[in-house]
Structures are given as structure tokens and as C-alpha cells.
């Protein structure tokens, strides 16, 4: 069934039914709003009466909808809802935490008792008590501004759009095309013994597609994923994207990639588009500057960091071109919110992580600022579900545009003799202290004499985080700024997934180590970067 047939079949009755299908969630949320202060008093008073020096109470409701289409088939329509609450307590310098989907008053008392009991069970053998700063009390309500609520948009509209993307791709010659749309609404209520009562709601949306072209005679295939990142936005974001145009371009680029010469490994200049660079920022600046990680709190999973507190204000993290800032207030930012999950107000707490090349600050949650001699958290706490203990997570972290607003990506490319212009993110990996990274991409344009002259395949770039940012010698102007991001950044044990955005402009990096991934797999490349007769020699393995 194509999109036109599909649209014909739908009915007005169906439209109205689907538009109302999230009514129960809204009604439940309204019910919490009406009683939250009274409800919160129950576990907070209980925890205090049992000896907690601090307690907070969270309710979280998450609604999501995910659609998956492959060619002209809809292979998944999944709606999900979770609703639950948790109590976190600090007793005798130890944390305790209990969560349940049962929001009855009896359960809230039990949660407080359980949280206090497991905190107290650590008593007597702690080496260092947990200490937290006093936070101001807020009574606030915040709702993310969006134009079109994606949960109110008819299902057939969304499915029709996905099928149209797939049709455009296969109609342009793709062997396969799959597309998806995910949307999430988080509603959070937070009360704590500092006196805060906060209610917040936000929405995020993630459209995407991937095309594949195959050559059965040569047993080869190539893919190209869409460049559309997730956003903290309503349905208007998907509605206004030129997904059809990108699907057609993706097919063209996948075909070209399949027959492109294989790059020859070596040092090359790179111009990296925001659609690729956001992930490099995430891995080489975002994660290394999490203070809990730097202090060893993530040592057993995500690792530690090269970026330790003694390097504050001294480490030359990048060239003078590089300023990377953090905020939870950016328009359409996936991490944007008015109060973090510790109850810290985020407005006015924007901060520079790297200022003109120098490392200036860490990301922090409650109780961490004193570790580096500062007075208060900068609002980076997040819990991904009602049953998750809030931990420090990334705010939106973004590369500031260069000072000249007129600089375009073509200007940056013009300054490269031999190099590669990389678009779209793909494979990524970095060591547990965030030194050694390796990234690939979706499209690798060859640069020769300052111009794009075809494409390479089999490209990965590899380096050291600090060396890489110090090799940056050019940035696009503010008109080239784009917001990328991730829906599910992982951290913690048990693992938690956080949404986060990273803005960037195109940036130029000199003499970066480029790998040939076919060589790495054991297939030797014989082409040079200067010709188009590339190929593979030798057998598998």
C-alpha cells in the first residue's frame, strides 16, 4: 500500500479516535497535579521522622510512541506508558532509594521506610559521609513550548509520511529503505525537604531513515542513514523536514559510496559537518567533563577521565578557536528543562566547559560542587525513569560558532589542499578515560585543491581528544550552526538513557589520522588518494 492509498482508506472517525488516545495519561497527570503537595508530604514527612536529613520524592510519567516502516510495510506501531514514583533519602551520610509503580498512600509510606532502612544499613562502616549543599526552594511549573503535540497528530499522518520516505528511496533505486519515528513525553513532579514543589513536562521526537543499495554480483552493499537528529520539539520538526529530498539524496550517495575509491590511510585535513561533529563533541568533551566520572564514581562501567580537577583553568583542551558551552535552556535542546532532577533551577546556570581553548568547568549534580571547591551544582541531574536514582547527566553541550558570521563550509573547504569533508555520524568508540577515539561517518567527500571532487569509502578518523581539538583552525559562522543530538546516551549502573543535544558549526582540523577500514579488516588497499582506481587486494581475514 502506498501513501496515497493509505490516506484514502483512513476515516474522520479514526482521526478523532487516535487524537484522543492519550487522554488517560493526561487525566492521570491532572490528578497528580491536584494532589501533589499533599501526596508529597506523606513520604517526605515519614522520611524526616525516621531521621533523614534530606529527602526528595519524584513522580514520573513517560508516554512514548514508536513507528517502524520498511519499504511499504508498517512493521511496528508501539505505544508505551510507565507511571511510578520514588523516594530518595540521605540518612547518616548515606543514600537510600526505593521506587514503585504503586502510588497509594500506604505504598508511599513503605517507600520512605524502605529507603531509610537501606540507607541506615550502611551505617558504621562508611569512610566518607555524603554531604550535599542546601538548595533554594522553588515552586514552579514548566511546560516545554511546542507548536504541535505529536501525541495529538493522527497516526495515519505519521505513517503516511514514513511510507512516503520509503517510496521516495525505493523509487530512486534503493534496494531497501526503513524509516522510523519515535516520540516521548516526560512528565515529572519533584518535591524535596528544601521545600520545592516542581511540575514539568517536555516532549522529544526522533525521525530517521536508512537506505541500502546492493550489488549481488559483487556481494557488496552500502547504506546511508538520514542526517535528521532527534530534537526537543513537537511534530512541527518532522513536518518541516525535507525527508523526501534527503531520501533521494541518500540513495544517490549510497550508490556513489559503493563504487568510490577506498581512502589511503594517513594524515589528512578534515572538515567535519555538524551532523558528524556533534557526536565527537559528545564523546571527547561531554563525557570527559562529567565530574562524577572524573572522581571515580563511574569507574566500574563508563570509566574515569583524563580531565581531572587539577586541570581546571590550566589544560589547553583546544585551540583558541574552540569554545564549548553547556546549558539546559537551548531552544529544542533535548536536555532542556527548567529544573534538574535535584531541583536546581537551570536558567542562569549556563557555563563554559572550554573557553577559547582552556578547560573551565565540569558538569555537576547535587553534592558534587564541593569536590572542586565550588558552592553549588550547575543543574545536571537526571533520572531516566521513576525507578532510577538521579545521577549527573549531560546538559546540552555545544561548539560556539566562529567570530566571523560570514564563514561558510565552502570557505573552510577552500582552505584544504587534500582532505575529506565528512557528513553524518556512524560508528563511534572511545577509551574509558576519553583519550583515544575513532569515528566514522555517512558520507566522505574528497577535497582536492580546495574543492569537493567525488567521494571516498572506508574512512575512519582516529585520534586523541586534546590533540584533536588543538588541531582545529577554522569554524563556520553562526549561520552554519546546527543542533545534533542523541535520544539515548547511556551511563550508570543500572544503565540509564538520557537525551542530549549538541550544537555545532562545521569545523576544520589539520592533519588528523585517517584509517582505511578495509585495511583494518585485513583487506589491503592499493589506490592512492590521488587517483580513482582504488580497490581491494587479497582475501578475507
Amino acid at each position, binding site marked *: 500500500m502506498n501513501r496515497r492509498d493509505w490516506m484514502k482508506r483512513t476515516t474522520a472517525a479514526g482521526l478523532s479516535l487516535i487524537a484522543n488516545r492519550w487522554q488517560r495519561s493526561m487525566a492521570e497527570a491532572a490528578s497528580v497535579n491536584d494532589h501533589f503537595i499533599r501526596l508529597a508530604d506523606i513520604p517526605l514527612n515519614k522520611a524526616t521522622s525516621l531521621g533523614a536529613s534530606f529527602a526528595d520524592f519524584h513522580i514520573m510519567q513517560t508516554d512514548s510512541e514508536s513507528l517502524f516502516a520498511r519499504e511499504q510495510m508498517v512493521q511496528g506501531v508501539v505505544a508505551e506508558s510507565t507511571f511510578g514514583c520514588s523516594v530518595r533519602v540521605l540518612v547518616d551520610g548515606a543514600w537510600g532509594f526505593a521506587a514503585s509503580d504503586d502510588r497509594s498512600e500506604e505504598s508511599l509510606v513503605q517507600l520512605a521506610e524502605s529507603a531509610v532502612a537501606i540507607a541506615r544499613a*550502611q551505617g558504621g562502616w562508611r569512610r566518607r559521609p555524603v554531604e550535599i549543599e542546601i538548595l533554594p526552594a522553588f515552586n514552579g511549573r514548566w511546560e516545554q513550548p511546542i507548536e504541535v503535540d505529536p501525541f495529538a497528530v493522527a497516526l495515519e499522518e505519521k505513517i503516511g509520511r514514513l511510507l512516503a520516505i520509503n517510496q521516495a528511496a525505493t523509487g530512486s533505486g534503493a534496494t531497501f529503505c526503513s524509516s522510523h519515528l519515535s516520540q516521548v513525553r516526560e512528565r515529572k513532579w519533584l518535591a524535596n525537604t528544601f521545600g520545592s514543589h516542581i511540575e514539568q513536562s517536555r516532549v522529544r521526537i526522533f525521525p530517521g531513515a536508512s537506505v541500502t543499495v546492493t550489488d549481488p554480483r559483487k556481494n557488496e552493499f552500502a547504506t546511508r542513514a538520514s542526517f535528521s537528529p532527534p530534537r526537543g520539539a513537537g511534530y512541527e520538526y518532522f513536518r518541516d523536514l525535507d525527508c523526501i529530498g534527503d531520501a533521494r539524496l541518500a540513495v544517490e550517495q549510497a550508490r556513489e559510496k559503493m563504487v568510490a575509491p577506498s581512502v589511503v590511510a594517513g594524515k589528512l585535513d578534515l572538515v567535519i559537518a555538524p551532523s558528524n561533529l556533534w557526536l565527537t563533541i559528545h564523546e571527547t568533551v561531554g563525557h570527559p567533563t562529567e565530574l562524577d566520572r572524573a572522581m571515580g564514581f563511574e569507574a566500574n562501567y563508563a570509566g574515569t577521565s583524563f580531565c581531572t580537577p587539577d586541570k581546571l583553568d590550566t589544560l589547553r583542551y583546544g585551540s583558541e578557536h574552540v569554545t564549548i558551552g553547556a546549558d539546559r535552556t537551548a531552544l529544542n535542546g533535548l536536555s532542556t528543562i527548567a529544573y534538574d532532577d535535584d531541583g536546581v533551577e537551570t536558567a542562569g546556570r549556563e557555563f563554559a566547559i572550554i573557553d577559547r581553548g582552556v578547560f573551565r568547568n565540569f558538569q555537576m549534580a547535587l553534592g558534587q560542587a564541593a569536590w572542586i571547591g565550588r558552592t553549588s551544582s550547575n543543574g545536571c541531574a537526571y533520572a531516566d525513569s521513576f525507578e532510577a536514582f538521579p545521577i549527573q547527566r549531560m546538559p546540552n553541550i555545544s561548539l560556539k560558532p566562529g567570530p566571523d558570521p560570514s564563514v561558510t563550509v565552502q570557505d573552510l573547504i577552500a582552505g584544504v589542499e587534500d582532505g575529506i569533508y565528512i557528513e553524518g555520524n556512524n560508528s563511534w568508540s572511545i577509551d574509558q578515560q576519553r583519550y583515544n577515539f575513532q569515528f566514522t561517518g555517512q558520507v566522505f567527500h574528497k577535497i582536492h585543491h580546495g574543492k569537493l571532487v567525488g567521494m571516498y569509502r572506508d574512512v575512519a578518523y582516529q585520534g586523541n581528544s586534546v590533540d584533536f581539538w588543538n588541531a582545529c583552525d577554522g569554524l563556520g559562522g553562526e549561520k552554519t550552526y546546527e543542533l545534533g543530538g542523541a535520544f539515548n546516551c547511556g551511563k550508570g549502573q543500572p544503565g540509564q538513557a538520557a537525551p542530549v543535544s549538541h550544537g555545532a558549526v562545521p569545523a576544520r582540523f589539520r592533519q588528523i589520522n585517517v584509517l582505511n577500514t578495509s585495511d583494518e579488516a*585485513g583487506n589491503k588497499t592499493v589506490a592512492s588518494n590521488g587517483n580513482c582506481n582504488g580497490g581491494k587486494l587479497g582475501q578475507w581475514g
Partner: protein
Amino acid sequence: MGLMPVGITPDESKVLCQRVLGLVQADSAEVRVAVAADQHLRSANNDITSNSIANRIAIHLTVSYGQRSASISTNQTSDAALREAVEKVQALARLVPKDPEHLPPVEPADYDEPIMWAEPTAAATPADTIGWMRPVIEQARAARVESAAYLIRRVGATALSNSCGLFVHQPHTSVGFSMTARTLTGNGSGWASTQVTHAHNLDLTRIAEQAIRKAIDSRNPAERPAGRTTVVLESAAVRDLLALLVENLDRRSFDEGRSFLNSLFSNETSLEKPGTDRRDPIGSHLFGDKATLVCDPLCPEAPCGTHDGGLPLVRTPWIEGGVLKAMHVGRFWALKQGIKAQPSPGNIIMPGDGLTLEELISRVEDGVLITRLWYLRMVQPQTLLHTGLTRDGTFAIVHGKLAGPVKNFRFNESPATVLKNMVASGIGQRVLGGENAMPMHVPPLIVKDFNLSSVSDAS
């Protein structure tokens, strides 16, 4: 708070499934229920950093009208919530286009009784669990290293029921524990882990000893040049690589020409005699002679559930003596191709040669001992090339003996190549994975020509 959520017993679970299915008016339906009572205990810098308990339930319902279907999941179990969920998913299903690949729910079948439940694990209390962790932290303090650890105790059950009359309920318990020890100077790091069904089999002291020993032994690493070399991979590294291979053994991807097996199989069959069926890689010798991987749900060392979406899971060789024996085949694809459906493996068992780690090391003239891998990501799907890094203890091997710590490496290697190049194996063990939760019981391996691509400064 009770540690046994509703749905943990077969009777409770059946009642819940019947409540949901009883509300459904669609042509067919399938409900999955997963319940768990979890305790998470986390430590860093030799102190507990968080201690949490959570009861959870997830009800996942799929309904179909003919070939139109939709799914919903909720953690709300009141009559009103379930009724509304059913109404919502039925409304969605009516509006979804027909899926030509849609199939009716799975028919009931006979399933082996799983062996994933141990009463002492279920009966343990949060206080007991803290009691297990405390000696480990004190061990690290005494050894003057900083430890960070994570212990998860899970008591849960899954149930699957459908409108064809299928009902299967499988309870499970487990305790997983991992610990990283770091020297006070920060340049030595060691990690060790375990996972058990039965709490009585926990030996956290042994795990802590291993992590602490590796941390101390890995201090002040020397730099060894990157390059292809012979490596000894400990079980933790082996399991992460093999999980990536197994999840890509998919028949449909192969038939569609977008699997790593396409080029691998093409290369192999070009060397074989005329008449070889080039459309079916099953039975082809694609890996080294010593490569054998089996799914065995009733393996006591690493048991798993005995069904996958209602299809019985039984002992199945996937690779035997280097010959590909099975690939995942979905129900639709099996029907279309006229072949038998093959559920995904629930666990992976790799029999070893029975050599100790020391014996494996003694067989290497010049190489590297890799104890753990990290951040593995696909680089080239055409060859299944993955990248990643070594961490928490990497050591030089010279003349069959450990010759001191070396700096970590980034590797670029395909797990398919690892199975081609494995030379010898040790004694199987169950360890936790970096990014994959599948129970696996695998030995350490000697692998030749492993591609250590660059040196990492991380320690």
C-alpha cells in the same frame, strides 16, 4: 516493600494474562508480562554510593485484526488502566495498514522446564546484599586500592500468553557482580565479574582478589607498538566479541545480500568444488576448526529461558568445528523461504580445550594478554569489523610468560576473523559482558593476528 511483585508466580501471572486477553475483542492477541524485584547496590571510592530497590512490571500487548496489528505496553494493572490500554491498542491496530508479513500468534508447544530459579537468591534481603558487598569494599581498603563495584540481585518472571491458548511462565533469579579496582596513583586498573543463578555460588572475595591483583599488576604500563599480534583473550573479552557475531547470524540479511556472511561465504564457496549451493551457507566451513558455539538453555553454568517468543529453545549448535550450523530465521522468512524457523539463542556456550590461563600464556612466544574490552562498535558491516579498546589490565607475553603491563590498545577486528584465527582455548566460565546481557559461558582463547590498531593512553 515486598520483594515479590504480583505476577511472580504462575497462578498470578496466568490470572493477569487472562485479565488482559479477556478484554481483547480483536481477531488475535498476545500478551507478555515481565515482573522483577531488583536491588541495585553501587559503590565507588570504597564507599557505597547508591542503594536502591524497585519493583517493576511491564505488560506488553499486541493485537491484530487480520494483518493489521499494533502493540502497547504499560506498567499499570488496574482494571481501568488495562481496559484503556486494550481499547487504545485496538484503535491503533484498526488504523495500521496491512502488514503482508504478519503472522498469527504462535501455537502452544512443549517447553523444557527452565533452571533459572534459586530460592536462596529470591529469599535474600536488601540487608543480606549489603552484607555481601561490605567485605569486598573492606578487602579493597586493606589492599590500599580504590574500588568501584555494582551488584544487582534480580528476582523476576516472564509470561507469554496468546489467543491460540499458549501460556508459558518462566521465573528467574540472578546475582550479577562486577568490580573495578584502581591503584591510588590511578595508573593501574583491574576488573573482574561473576553472574550466578544461586546466591550460594557467589564468591565475591575471589572476584575482588582478581580485580585487585590485576590493578596492582597493571601499574606503570610500558608502551608496546600497535600491530597485528597473537593475543590471549580472557573470557570477558571473548564473550563481548562472540555476542557481536551471534547477533549477526541472520538468514534474512544474508538472503537479502546485506550480511557479512555474503562476502565470507562467497570467498569460501569460490574455493570449493562445483555444485556447492551458493544460496545456503549452512554447512559451510566458514570459521576455524576449533570454533564451536552452542545454545543450551539447560546448561547449568549459564541457563536461559526455554522459549523465544513462544518458539521452543532447545540445545542447538550454531557453529560446530568451524562449520556454520544455524542462523536466526524469523517465522515469516521461514515460511517465505520454505525453511524452518530458528529462534535467536538465549545463551551461548563455547566448549574449551580445558587449558588453564597459564597454559594458554605458555604457548605464546610473543603476544599480549587482554583481560577486558570496552566500547565495541560496528565499523564495517560488510566484514563485521568492529572497533573497541582494551582496558583494566593488559599485559605483554614474552617466551610464554607474562612480561609486565603494557598500555591499552584500540583494536579493529571482526569477530568472524577471531573465530578463524583462534588457536587454542581454556576453561569456560560465566562472566558479565560489557554491553550484552546474554548469559554466556566461554573460555579464554589464543587468537593469532589480532589487529591492535593504535595505542591508548587510558589506564
